[in-house]
C-alpha cells in the first residue's frame, strides 16, 4: 500500500493506482475528457492527451495528468490549486476555441461531456479567437460524423481498433489539423466500418452521433394509409428507463409497450418473439451440421457462428471472406421479424405489403444498416422499414409528451408478442448461446434439461469457453463479445480450429446488445452494463416459459405457416447468404 495525500486528505491506496483513481477513492472527482475506461471489459483509452485532469504534485516541475500518473509513496497532490484551476480552465477554453459554438442545436446537448465540463468550470467566454477546423459532414446509414466537433480524445479510434479491430478509423494528419479520420478521408461507408456504432457510444461530444430516424417514423404513423407495427429488442427494456431518470437495471417492458401504443403504433410486438424463432432456425441448423459431421461428412463447416449481430456479420464479410460458410444462415431476430411481419402477418391482417411499415426499436446502430441489405427486401420494399435506437425512442416519447415513468404496464400484441425467457437473454453476451443450448439439448437429447441456467455462458469475460455434455457428446462452445476477440476465434478457425469448437456466439458490443451503441450513454460506467445484464437474467427467471421451442406462438406459426424449422419456406424467408465485401485489387491496363 502507498501513502498519498490528496488535497490534504491522507489515504492509502494499492501500488499502481493512478492519481485519478486514488482521488476518486477519497471522494474527489477530478474532471477528465479523453480518459475512458470500461472497467473489467478490456477497454481503456488513456492517451493522456486532453490535459483536463492535470493536477499539481509537490516537487514536480510541471503539472501531472491524473489519469496517467501513478501515485508514489509520500506523494502530495493538489487537484484544485489556483495553478491547477488556471491551467484546467485554459485547456478547456483552448478546446472550445476549436469547437463550434452550437450547443443549442447539437444532438449531444445535455449528454455532452465537454458541455458538462464547461458548465462545471464556469467558462463564460472563450478568450481565444482563431482558426477552427472544418471537415465535410459524413454519414453512413448508422453513424453521423461532424468532425468539426472532434476534440481528438481518440476514444473512437481506440474503440474501432483495439476493441473491434475494425480498422476504419485512425488518427490522421498532425498538429492542429489532426483528426480521427478514415483511410484517405473516404466516406465512412466506403471503408472497413462495420457500423457497430461504438465510436458513437464513446464520443464525449457531438462529433459522432447516430442517424436520427424519428421523423421518418412519425411521418409513417401520421400516414393514415399505413399500418405501422413495431418490434422491440430484448436489450431495450432494461435500459430505456435510464433516459427517464430510472435506475440502471430497471425493467420497463410493460411501460414501454404502453408508451409505444401512446405513440400511435398500430401493433406493438416483441423482437423477443422472433428471437425464439431464431433459436428454432439456428438451433436446427446447428444440429443438422453436427449430425452430418458425426456421420463423417467432411464438407460440413464447423464451428457454426451465430449471425444475430449485424456488425459481426459485416465484420466477417469484410475481413474473412474465406470463412463465409461458417456462420449460421439464420437472419437476425430483427430481420426475421420483418420477414414474418411483411409476409405472414400482413396477409393475416389483410394489409398490402407496401402499406405495412415495420419499425424496430433496437439497442443498436448496425441494425439501421442491416435493414438496408438488398436481400432483406422484396421488390425494393424492405422487410424492416425503420430502426430506432433506445435513445431515439426516449426522445420520441419525450417529444410526444409521454413520461415513461407515469405509464401503466401493458402487454404486447399477438401473435408476434409472446416470448420466452430464452428470447429475453438475447440481450446479453452468451444469451443466444444459452437460449440455443436450451432448445438444442432438448431436441437432440429428447429429454428435459437437468438445469435451465447455463452459468458457463454468463458473465462479462471477453471470451468464454465451455464444453457442454449433450448426453455423452461433448459440445464445445465459445462466446465472444468485442470483435477483436471474435477475430482471435476466426483466426483459430482459419488455422484449422485446433480447439475443436462446434458453436461460437459473437456479439460486437461490450456485454452484448445491452452495451449497444443505441443504448443510453453509459459514459464509461461499466456498472450500468452490469445492471442491465442482471436485469436481463432477472426477466428471464421470471418468465413462465423459458425455452424457445415451448413458445406456443412459435409452435403455432410452424404449424400454420412455416412447416418446420429450416424447411423450404423458412429458408426463403428466414435465412440469408453472405457476400465477400473485402476490397479487392484490380489490375489496370
Amino acid at each position, binding site marked *: 500500500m502507498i501513502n498519498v495525500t490528496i488535497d490534504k486528505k491522507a489515504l492509502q491506496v494499492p501500488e499502481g493506482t493512478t492519481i485519478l483513481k486514488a482521488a476518486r477513492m477519497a471522494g474527489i472527482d477530478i474532471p477528465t475528457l479523453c480518459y475512458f475506461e470500461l472497467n473489467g471489459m478490456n477497454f481503456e483509452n488513456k492517451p493522456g492527451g486532453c490535459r483536463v485532469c492535470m493536477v499539481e504534485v509537490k516537487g514536480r516541475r510541471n503539472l501531472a495528468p491524473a489519469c496517467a500518473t501513478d501515485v508514489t509513496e509520500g506523494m502530495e497532490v493538489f487537484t484544485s490549486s489556483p495553478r491547477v484551476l488556471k491551467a484546467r480552465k485554459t485547456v478547456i477554453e483552448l478546446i472550445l476555441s476549436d469547437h463550434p459554438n452550437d450547443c443549442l442545436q447539437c444532438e449531444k446537448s445535455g449528454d455532452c461531456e465537454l458541455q458538462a465540463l464547461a458548465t462545471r468550470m464556469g467558462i463564460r467566454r472563450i478568450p481565444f479567437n482563431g482558426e477552427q477546423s472544418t471537415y465535410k459532414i459524413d454519414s453512413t446509414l448508422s453513424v453521423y460524423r461532424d468532425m468539426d466537433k472532434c476534440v481528438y480524445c481518440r476514444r473512437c479510434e481506440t474503440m474501432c481498433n483495439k476493441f473491434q479491430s475494425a480498422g476504419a478509423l485512425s488518427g490522421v494528419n498532425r498538429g492542429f489539423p489532426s483528426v480521427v479520420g478514415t483511410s484517405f478521408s473516404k466516406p465512412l461507408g466506403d471503408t472497413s466500418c462495420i457500423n457497430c456504432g461504438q465510436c458513437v457510444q464513446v464520443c464525449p461530444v457531438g462529433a459522432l452521433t447516430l442517424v436520427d430516424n424519428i421523423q421518418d417514423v412519425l411521418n409513417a404513423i401520421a400516414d393514415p394509409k399505413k399500418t405501422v407495427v413495431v418490434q422491440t429488442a430484448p436489450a431495450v427494456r432494461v435500459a430505456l428507463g435510464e433516459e427517464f431518470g430510472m435506475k440502471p437495471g430497471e425493467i420497463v417492458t410493460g411501460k414501454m409497450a404502453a408508451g409505444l401504443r401512446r405513440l400511435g403504433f398500430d401493433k406493438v410486438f416483441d423482437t423477443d418473439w422472433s428471437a425464439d424463432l431464431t433459436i428454432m432456425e439456428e438451433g436446427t441448423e446447428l444440429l443438422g451440421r453436427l449430425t452430418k459431421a458425426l456421420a463423417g461428412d467432411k464438407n460440413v463447416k464447423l464451428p457454426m457462428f451465430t449471425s444475430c449481430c449485424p456488425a459481426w456479420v459485416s465484420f466477417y464479410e*469484410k475481413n474473412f471472406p474465406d470463412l463465409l460458410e461458417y456462420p449460421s444462415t439464420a437472419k437476425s431476430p430483427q430481420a426475421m421479424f420483418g420477414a414474418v411481419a411483411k409476409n405472414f402477418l400482413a396477409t393475416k391482417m389483410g394489409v398490402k405489403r407496401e402499406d405495412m411499415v415495420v419499425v424496430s426499436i433496437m439497442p443498436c446502430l448496425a441494425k439501421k444498416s442491416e435493414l438496408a441489405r438488398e436481400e432483406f427486401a422484396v421488390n425494393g420494399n424492405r422487410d424492416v422499414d425503420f430502426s430506432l435506437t433506445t435513445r431515439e425512442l426516449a426522445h420520441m416519447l419525450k417529444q410526444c409528451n409521454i413520461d415513461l415513468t407515469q405509464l401503466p404496464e401493458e402487454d404486447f400484441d399477438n401473435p408476434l408478442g409472446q416470448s420466452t425467457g430464452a428470447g429475453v437473454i438475447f440481450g446479453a453476451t452468451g444469451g443466444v448461446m444459452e437460449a440455443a443450448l436450451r432448445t438444442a439439448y432438448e431436441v437432440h437429447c429428447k429429454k428435459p434439461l437437468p438445469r435451465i441456467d447455463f452459468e458457463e455462458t454468463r458473465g462479462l469475460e471477453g471470451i468464454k469457453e465451455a464444453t457442454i455434455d449433450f448426453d455423452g457428446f461433448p459440445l464445445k462452445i465459445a462466446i465472444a463479445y468485442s470483435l477483436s476477440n471474435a477475430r482471435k476465434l476466426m483466426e483459430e478457425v482459419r488455422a484449422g480450429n485446433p480447439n475443436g469448437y462446434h458453436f461460437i456466439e459473437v456479439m460486437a458490443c461490450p456485454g452484448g446488445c445491452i452495451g449497444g451503441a443505441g443504448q443510453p450513454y453509459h459514459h464509461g460506467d461499466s456498472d450500468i452494463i452490469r445492471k442491465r445484464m442482471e436485469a436481463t437474467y432477472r426477466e428471464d427467471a421470471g418468465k413462465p416459459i423459458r425455452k424457445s421451442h415451448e413458445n406456443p406462438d412459435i409452435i403455432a406459426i410452424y404449424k400454420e405457416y412455416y412447416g418446420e424449422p429450416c424447411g423450404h419456406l423458412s429458408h426463403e424467408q428466414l435465412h440469408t447468404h453472405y457476400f465477400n*465485401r473485402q476490397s479487392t485489387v484490380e489490375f489496370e491496363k
Partner: protein
Amino acid sequence: MSSIKIKKEVADKIEAICKSFNNDASELINVLHQTQDYLGYLPTEAQEVIAKHLNISPAKVFGVVSFYSFFSMVPKGKCPVAICLGTACYVRGAEKIVDAFSQRLNINVGETDKDGIFSLNTLRCVGACGLAPVALVNGQVYGRLVADDVKRIIEENKAKFGI
C-alpha cells in the same frame, strides 16, 4: 468496399518491397520509403496494397503517411524546388527567396506548376548553413542566394528540361 485499381507492375513491385521486409507491419515506414522512392509519391492505391500485404488497415497506413512530412500523396514536379527554411537560412532572408520562386513560377508552396515541371516546397535545414540561404533545385544545392538569383536558376533548369 470498393476495388483498388492499380497497374500490375506497380502492385508486383509493392508486393516485393513488402516481402523484402517479411510483410512485417513494424517496417511500415521503411516500406513507405521504398514505395515512394519507386513511385515518386504515395498514391492511395499503393497505400491500400501495402495495407493488404502488411495486414493492417488502410486507415492506419494513411494515418502514418499523413503524419510524416517526408511522405507525399501528390506527385512532385520533374524539377522539384525546395527552399531551406531552417533558422540559419531564415535569418539570412530565406523567406524572400521563397517569395521570389513563388512569384516567378506562379505557384504557391506545396504546388506543382500546370506543366508538371516545377514544384515548390520548403524544408528544414539541409545542413548547408554556411551557404545560407539555400535552395535545392532538382537535387542541386544553390547557396548564398539573393532574390535576383531566382530568375537565373529557373532559366538554367528550364534549359535542362528543354523548355
